């Protein structure tokens, strides 16, 4: 017996997960279950796993709909599965889907069920044997329709179709329909009621038995229970075998990377890796990745890349120029990437400059037509998003919804939402009047359901046959082909992905070097070893790395200051040890680094953790410790490492913990020591790096730090031009000023579209002016290339900006070069006059042959200094010539400057600060507290708001505002922070 269900992957319709359906089917006594989601196979991996868990035989299928027509397709064979994938892909990709036309060449191995007589008859014409399903029609019509089916000689069956696993999910289904159709809660009653799964019952045929197929007969016609799960590698075609080609290229690359002759160590490691790669069948994969990486970009230059992830542990990858860090020099553990026992496919991650990534992807799609697609992300309803959508259905205005949703942090969707929100520190004064209690109750039903697909940030799949042979595809909003499975689903079915990711810092490094070279300087990258440069090391050890990739966050800069080492090896450790649950280990690391006494928790750990002062720093440390201490196999240890990053790890970890304890006790390790080591393992909490990844990132960090210390103007301009980063433009501008760089305002006669830096000066780009469009910026540059602008009228008549753009430019100081008197109000007057004449001319019946002329403006006041600065700040987000704090601090206010903090260790101080960044954390007790970064005219500084102060002052805190701060200076290993006791708003 089996039932046909819609799972929650029937987006906007189904509410029960495949797992819940399998559980219920098992409970009700079904031996087989068929999930036919609407036009997709999104949930197939989850269905297969759940069916295995509950010992149910899966029956694969999907419902194909087109307008009001619908057909349920059940898969009979492997060929049928491929055909179903193609049909679903066509359904998504063909603008004019026609059942007969699409099914004709793709119907083999598919059993079609339906209740649309005409559609079934048209499918019979193309050679299919469709079955009329009486389970899809109302009971009172069954008799009549079965007669009709008999008349057309169509076989009939009666199958139970269910939308939910249980009756309790009925309201969830109706709510989901309302949200999906963007209706109001008033329409809840309009939707059709869902059918919950019922116990199997023999159905009485409504037509003669020879026309009626039983469920057993249908089941027997569909023996297929899921596609194969073999590894599917990207194809590599060459006259030589992939194995031979890889060996050849690896040796050739090694000769370039290392001095000749190659050492034994390099030879041995290469041979070892190549053997494993070959045995695992990964040779072609490496070659395809190399093909992607070693292509020239727009300016006929090789693209700047950063091969990262566990793949950076491979010497072969290093020799193929896929990665940039020598695995031998930095002792990188190859088995973290690949070993003979590894069952799941590892992947190689490659970063490209953020603005080149799209080109790279397009090249791959062109190189592998119909055989490449991106992995998707299954996006689920999250608490904030769900509350927002349900509140909209309840008719609440955007402004009110935002008040609540913008203050939601760390909600537990399993517990009641209302008490959690009421207790939230950010909503302590909020009155949850009606209909909020209903909204939150309804939102809770929806949270966790799949909502839509998005494109994975980088995962791309390349297959030997067209990709729709293995998995259905569809196009994302940006017309990128995506497969129906997320990365876990792709991995489940053996699809090996390559991660092509965008990285802003690679763009920053590229643009900095470009600007250096444009200034006439030569920059030799071949012999560039930033990790050996003393100035760079000095910059890092004093935490001056704002703008540098991965090491610019306040926590990281504090750690660098405390460590005070500035060397590459320590930076690799620091990049990985900075993680949420590892604060005490960070402190211990600094203590041990500064010569504090320590010993290994157990002598066995010496060989594994010696370089990291006996602390577990990297992901692979978990596996290595498990192997060394508890006798885990490589495979099992790797399993433990992977479980750490899973969301529902608690149950699985329990098994691993028991195994770890038993293994360690067999080696006579004291229970207390085992417990401490296990606690250290738990500090990873799903967030950490492997060493190869850390090393790859540290390399980019050092390159950025080198450029910052030697070419600050060019570097900071590139940071600003590439956008992103941890801080706001305001904070980067302040940092540039602190480095002695002069910031020049935007100017229509001198600025480029984006930021430019040269010889200690940064010129603000036109795009920094709020409200100025890219099109207008480009027009300004084109017009300026003909001749510089001389008057306001000249500018307005040649560029044709709209009035608000012109005003923004005036407020930002971008048109100061056109004013003889320096009075911006006159420029504004000319602009208003020009547009007034233009408007009235448009209304005039006879157009004028001559351009408008502007009479002299009347006597107009010049804006005050403060007003002018305020307008500048409003349009640019920063001030070019002074710090806004100097304008809003009362003149008589006694305060110390941030650069002097170290002199006031342990003392109470008062200082003014501009809030630039913050990070909300929770104490062990679960109380919220925040680390906030401020800056004044002299330096950026870090503050701590412990729960008491945070509770009192959190309503006052807002980024981009000035404050007067009173607190105590805390100095730890040479790094000063302020523990805040009182805060007041300034200005």
């Amino acid at each position: 017996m089996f039932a046909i269900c819609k799972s929650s992957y029937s987006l906007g319709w189904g509410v029960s997960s495949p797992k819940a359906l399998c559980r219920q089917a098992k409970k009700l006594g079904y031996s087989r279950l068929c999930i036919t989601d609407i036009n997709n196979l999104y949930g197939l991996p989850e269905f297969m796993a759940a069916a295995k868990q509950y010992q149910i035989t899966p029956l694969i299928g999907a419902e194909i709909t087109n307008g009001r027509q619908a057909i349920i397709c059940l898969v009979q064979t492997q060929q049928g599965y491929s055909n179903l994938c193609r049909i679903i892909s066509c359904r998504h990709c063909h603008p004019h889907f026609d059942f007969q036309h699409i099914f004709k060449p793709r119907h083999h191995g598919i059993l079609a069920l339906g209740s649309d007589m005409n559609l079934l008859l048209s499918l019979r014409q193309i050679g299919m044997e469709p079955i009329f399903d009486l389970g899809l029609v109302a009971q009172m019509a069954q008799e009549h329709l079965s007669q009709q089916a008999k008349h057309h000689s169509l076989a009939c069956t009666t199958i139970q179709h269910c939308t939910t696993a249980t009756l309790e999910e009925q309201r969830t289904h109706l709510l989901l329909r309302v949200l999906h159709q963007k209706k109001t809660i008033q329409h809840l009653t309009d939707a059709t009621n869902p059918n919950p799964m019922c116990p199997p019952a023999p159905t009485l045929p409504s037509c003669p038995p020879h026309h009626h197929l039983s469920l057993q007969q249908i089941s027997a016609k569909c023996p297929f229970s899921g596609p194969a799960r073999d590894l599917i590698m990207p194809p590599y075609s060459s006259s030589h075998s992939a194995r031979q080609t890889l060996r050849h290229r690896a040796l050739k690359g090694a000769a370039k990377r290392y001095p000749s002759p190659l050492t034994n160590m390099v030879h041995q490691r290469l041979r070892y890796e190549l053997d494993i790669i070959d045995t695992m069948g990964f040779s072609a994969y490496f070659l395809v990745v190399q093909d992607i990486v070693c292509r020239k970009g727009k300016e006929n230059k090789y693209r700047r890349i950063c091969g990262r992830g566990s793949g950076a542990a491979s010497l072969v990858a290093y020799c193929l120029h896929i990665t940039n860090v020598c695995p031998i020099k930095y002792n990188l553990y190859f088995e973290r990437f690949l070993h003979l026992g590894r069952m799941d496919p590892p992947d190689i991650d490659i970063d490209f400059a953020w603005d080149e990534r799209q080109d790279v992807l397009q090249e791959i799609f062109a190189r592998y037509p119909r055989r490449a697609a991106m992995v998707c992300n299954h996006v689920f309803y999250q608490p904030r998003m769900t509350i927002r959508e349900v509140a909209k259905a309840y008719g609440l205005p955007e402004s009110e919804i935002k008040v609540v949703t913008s203050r939601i942090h760390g909600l537990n969707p399993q517990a009641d939402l209302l008490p959690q929100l009421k207790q939230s520190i950010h909503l302590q004064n909020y009155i949850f009047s009606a209909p909020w209690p209903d909204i939150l109750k309804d939102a809770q039903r929806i949270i966790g359901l799949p909502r839509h697909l998005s494109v994975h940030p980088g995962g791309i799949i390349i297959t030997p046959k067209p990709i729709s042979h293995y998995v259905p595809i569809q196009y994302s909003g940006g017309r990128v082909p995506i497969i129906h499975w997320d990365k876990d689903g792709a991995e489940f079915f053996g699809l090996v992905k390559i991660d092509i990711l965008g990285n802003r810092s690679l763009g920053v490094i590229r643009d900095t070097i470009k600007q250096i070279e444009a200034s006439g300087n030569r920059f030799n990258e071949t012999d560039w070893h930033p990790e050996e440069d003393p100035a760079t090391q000095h910059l890092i050890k004093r935490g001056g790395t704002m703008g540098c990739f991965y090491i610019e966050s306040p926590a990281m800069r504090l750690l660098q200051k405390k460590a005070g080492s500035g060397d590459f090896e320590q930076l690799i450790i620091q990049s990985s040890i900075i993680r949420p649950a590892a604060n005490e280990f960070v402190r211990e690391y600094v203590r041990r680094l500064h010569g504090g006494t320590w010993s290994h928790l157990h002598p066995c750990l010496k060989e594994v953790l010696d370089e990291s002062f006996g602390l577990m720093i990297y992901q692979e440390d978990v596996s290595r410790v498990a192997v060394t201490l508890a006798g885990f196999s490589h495979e099992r240890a790797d399993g433990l490492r992977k479980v750490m990053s899973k969301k529902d790890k608690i149950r699985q970890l329990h098994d691993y913990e028991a195994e770890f304890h038993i293994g360690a006790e067999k080696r006579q390790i004291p229970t207390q020591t085992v417990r401490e080591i296990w606690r250290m393992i738990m500090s990873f909490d799903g967030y950490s790096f492997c060493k190869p990844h850390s090393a790859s990132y540290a390399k980019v960090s050092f390159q950025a730090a080198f450029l910052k210390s030697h070419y600050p103007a060019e570097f900071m301009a590139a940071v600003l031009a590439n956008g992103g980063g941890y801080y706001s433009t305001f904070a980067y501008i302040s940092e540039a000023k602190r480095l002695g760089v002069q910031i020049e305002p935007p100017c229509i006669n001198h600025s480029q579209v984006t930021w430019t830096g040269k010889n200690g000066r940064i010129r603000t780009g036109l795009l920094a002016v709020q409200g100025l469009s890219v099109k207008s910026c480009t027009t300004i540059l084109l017009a300026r290339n003909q001749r510089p602008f001389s008057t306001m009228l000249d500018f307005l008549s040649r560029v044709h900006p709209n009035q608000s753009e012109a005003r923004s430019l005036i407020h930002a100081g971008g048109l100061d070069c056109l004013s003889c008197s320096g009075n911006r109000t006159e420029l504004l007057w000319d602009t208003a006059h020009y547009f007034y004449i233009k408007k009235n001319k448009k209304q005039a019946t006879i157009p004028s042959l001559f351009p408008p002329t502007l009479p002299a403006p009347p006597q107009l006041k010049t804006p005050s200094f403060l007003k002018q600065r305020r307008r500048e700040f409003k349009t640019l987000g920063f001030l070019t010539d002074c710090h806004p704090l100097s304008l809003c601090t009362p003149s008589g206010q006694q305060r110390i400057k941030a650069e002097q903090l170290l002199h006031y260790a342990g003392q109470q101080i008062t200082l003014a600060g501009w809030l630039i960044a913050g990070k909300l954390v929770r104490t062990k007790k679960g109380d919220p507290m925040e680390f906030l970064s401020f800056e004044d005219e002299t330096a950026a500084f870090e503050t701590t708001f412990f729960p008491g102060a945070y509770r009192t002052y959190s309503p006052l805190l807002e980024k981009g505002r000035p404050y007067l701060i009173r607190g105590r200076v805390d100095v730890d290993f040479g790094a000063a922070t302020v523990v805040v006791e009182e805060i007041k708003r300034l200005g």
Partner: protein
Amino acid sequence: MGSTRCIVHINIIGFAHAVAARVDPSLLDRPVVVAQGVTRSQILDLSPQAFSWGIRKGMVIERAIHLCPDCTIIPPQFDLYQRAMTALYQEVRPFSPSIEHGFADGHLFADLSGTSKLFGAGSDVARRICNAATSRLGLRPGWAIGPNKLVAKVASRISRSQGECEVSLGTEAQFLAPHSLQFLPGATPEELQNLDDFCITAMGDAVHLNLNQLRILLDRRASFYHDACRGIDPLPVGQQHHHTITSVFNFAGDTNNTHQIRGAISLLGTHLSHKLRRRQSMTHRLSLSVVYTGCTSRTIRIPLQQRTNNDRLLIEQVQDVLHRILKKRLRVQQLALRAEQLMQASQQLTLFSKDSQDPIREQNLLLALDQISTKFDGIKIHRARSLAAKGAF
């Protein structure tokens, strides 16, 4: 007439709060805001103490609570306000035949021109009115006198703290010049921002520009600013245009319940048609304005095929456009139904009525209902559908 004009503007600051405090003295000297009790409601009025906490009219309650967690929220009581306004009107009536006041906002203009020989100087009259209002009504109004309504109102706003002010004829421009344009009634925030860009912040700054120059900045609104900043306002007291009749329904809180909204429309239709019949008017076009929660609003014009004052026909026409209101997925706070293009009701029945109902019978029924309503001072008979509506006119 211009040379003898004397207009007094009586203003009860925080009118709604003052009236509420008269009923419940415990509300005196406390931060109080008047608004419907849901967090997203806008503040309709507030006490001076609430004002000093930074709370302003139009703010949402949530923000007000954020600024002053101890403020008291009281619901509006429109019937009380109306009674207070009527009482204030009665105090002014002996002094002037020409009085103008809003629905229930605590503002009142009286034209005292030419009454000085009868009652004394304008300022004396204003004081007498205010003293009477204080002693008899328990409300403490402020006053300002000017040669026209605009100057009187601006003076009233400027002298808010003193409570009294007099601007004599010929000194209007001089009086207004140093004061911010923000005091001008009718100046929008966008216009003020625009003028601020040109460093025109005081009324005196605007006086330096001639009308043509002001047009460059303000286009069609230039003449208003040109006159207003010079203290020119020719509009007489009491001049009100009655080209439309409006009925407004405020929901208790807000709602997106279709039945409640239908009920409110039914109630509005009955109310409006009753008003029309009382004025012996008919309408050729309706206009339905909806105020959604969150300050957005929408107006739908409904042309009628034939002029009418029949409530059934009006309600049917409005119900037809209901889906357009509900299309916006927002809760509704207020509905206003306006009858436009008014004309005298014809006593003659149409020969070719498209309506299937018996017109004579229906008209008799409406007449009977009107008589009952008049007798019982207000509409006491509603359509059953109106019962779903929860709120007040």
